[in-house]
């Protein structure tokens, strides 16, 4: 089972501009722009390492969306983008709280 979790989330400086967010990442020295759903993904993963299915289920409920294939693909894309930026990592394991 593939679990996603945040990387150094506690170091991020987040500024709320009203459903839009800027996130300063000290590790890279970069500032990123997030919209509401993308910041919620990051916050959720900071609290709960989760599979993509779990992330989609929660987000679909929160944003009143149908968790269809397109929705899931969009979430998956952004997770890989987060991973490229060093904001999240994925772990392949049975228990997300191990190691």
């Amino acid at each position, binding site marked *: 089972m593939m679990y996603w979790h945040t990387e150094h989330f506690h*170091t991020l400086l987040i500024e709320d501009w*009203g459903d839009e967010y800027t996130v300063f990442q000290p590790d890279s020295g970069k500032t990123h722009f997030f919209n509401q759903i993308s910041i919620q993904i990051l916050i959720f993963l900071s609290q709960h390492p989760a599979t993509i299915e779990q992330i989609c289920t929660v987000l679909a409920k929160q*944003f009143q969306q149908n968790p269809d294939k397109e929705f899931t693909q969009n979430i998956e894309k952004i997770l890989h983008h987060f991973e490229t930026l060093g904001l999240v990592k994925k772990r392949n394991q049975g228990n997300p709280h191990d190691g």
Partner: protein
Amino acid sequence: MTAEKPQKTTETSNRESTVSTLETPQHTRRKLLKGAATIPVVMTLYSGAALARTSNITGEAANIDTAVFMDTSNGPQLLCVFPDAAQQQISGDTYDLGAAPQATLIQDPKINPIAASADKKKLEQLDACHAQGGIMISAVAYSSIMDKTGITINSTTL
């Protein structure tokens, strides 16, 4: 996940307490992004000032009178700078000289600055520059580029 919203300016040490709030921020500013809110978006922002500091994008001098001529023992020589071949050049009348601009001084024809033929010979030096793939730049552009990265002049005629 709960319907939590990050609060304005969260701090590192108290992430849990400040990130979670049900308070809806007042937003009167114009949105940076328009479109579907259910498509996750992340974009890395870059400083325009930082880009300006590292770019050497310039246009060719408007005319020969504003071009840079270096005084040498062989008379004035046109500073002929070369667009960086490694850079994708911008269409139009602008050129990217790259991070380490290169130039040469045009020696021929030799210019006697007090002779009546000086203007004509300056134009001939410009033609020679163009023939080498170079451009003339203005004194203002020259100063700006010298302040940022300098220009390497491949010439021994100074």
